[in-house]
């Protein structure tokens, strides 16, 4: 195998480099997926029927907690990739664990939020607005859930095999995915919550 020593480990093989490019193309497709959800959300935003509107059910506190958790987790996984590049496996694994714990906490707050919505009469089938709201938030939440399991698998591989071109490449691609989830959340925070409470 041809290993290019001038590049960080995750880019050091041609396969690894192309895996990263391929993942960016996947992220481009994910951007479009979330665009369709946002487009539907903006269209159905005031179709509340007999159900509540956004400003009646949104609460700033859980939303701020979720935002801070996800922003911090994006920061810690960035530090994890940095630690990986200076070859510090222990620090890298610690940062990835912190990231996953923050992600799990985010998910916990989001589940609380969903239960709260159902309790105040904003379940999935109440109106076009609640349907698209819960679908948009839920699609992001499902991505985070998937990311948690993916991250655990990555950590197990790094623990078992150490930092090789392959495990470094997988870890880096996972970090891209995690940062992307944070980007999507920033748009949900701005254009679903803040716009709805404005």
């Amino acid at each position, binding site marked *: 195998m041809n290993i290019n020593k001038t590049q960080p480990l995750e880019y050091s093989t041609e396969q690894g480099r192309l895996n990263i490019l391929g993942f960016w193309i996947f992220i481009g497709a994910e951007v479009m997926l979330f665009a369709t959800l946002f487009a539907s959300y903006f269209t159905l935003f005031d179709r509340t029927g007999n159900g509540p509107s956004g400003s009646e059910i949104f609460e700033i506190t859980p939303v701020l907690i979720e935002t801070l958790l996800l922003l911090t987790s994006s920061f810690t996984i960035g*530090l994890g990739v940095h630690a990986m590049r200076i070859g510090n496996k222990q620090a890298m694994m610690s940062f990835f664990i912190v990231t996953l714990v923050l992600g799990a906490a985010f998910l916990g707050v989001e589940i609380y939020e969903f239960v709260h919505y159902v309790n105040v009469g904003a379940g999935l089938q109440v109106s076009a607005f609640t349907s698209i709201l819960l679908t948009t938030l839920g699609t992001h939440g499902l991505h985070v859930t998937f990311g948690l399991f993916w991250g655990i698998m990555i950590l197990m591989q790094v623990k078992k095999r150490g930092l090789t071109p392959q495990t470094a490449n997988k870890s880096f691609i996972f970090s891209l995915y995690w940062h992307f989830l944070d980007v999507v959340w920033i748009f949900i925070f701005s254009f679903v919550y803040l*716009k709805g409470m404005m």
Partner: protein
Amino acid sequence: MKELFPAKHVMGFVFSLILTGVALVVYFMDMSFTAGMTVLLITAFAQATLQVVLFMHAGESTDKGSIYVSVIYGIVIAIFTVLGTLLAMIWGYV
């Protein structure tokens, strides 16, 4: 310990917290819809750019041309989807 917290990352994190704070202005202050949306659009896209360029290392691979093309393509389609839907479903009727 210090080498684990590079200044660039810490600054990026602080900057993203500041942008979140600025976006919160639309909640705590009484603003017109246009002014509020302008603030949100600027802070959201600034944060997204910060993440992609700083934390996702988009510009450092030898494939950076292809990476930027695929991301920008995704964003252009996203903008067309959102604005086109708004035009067809909402703006076209008022």
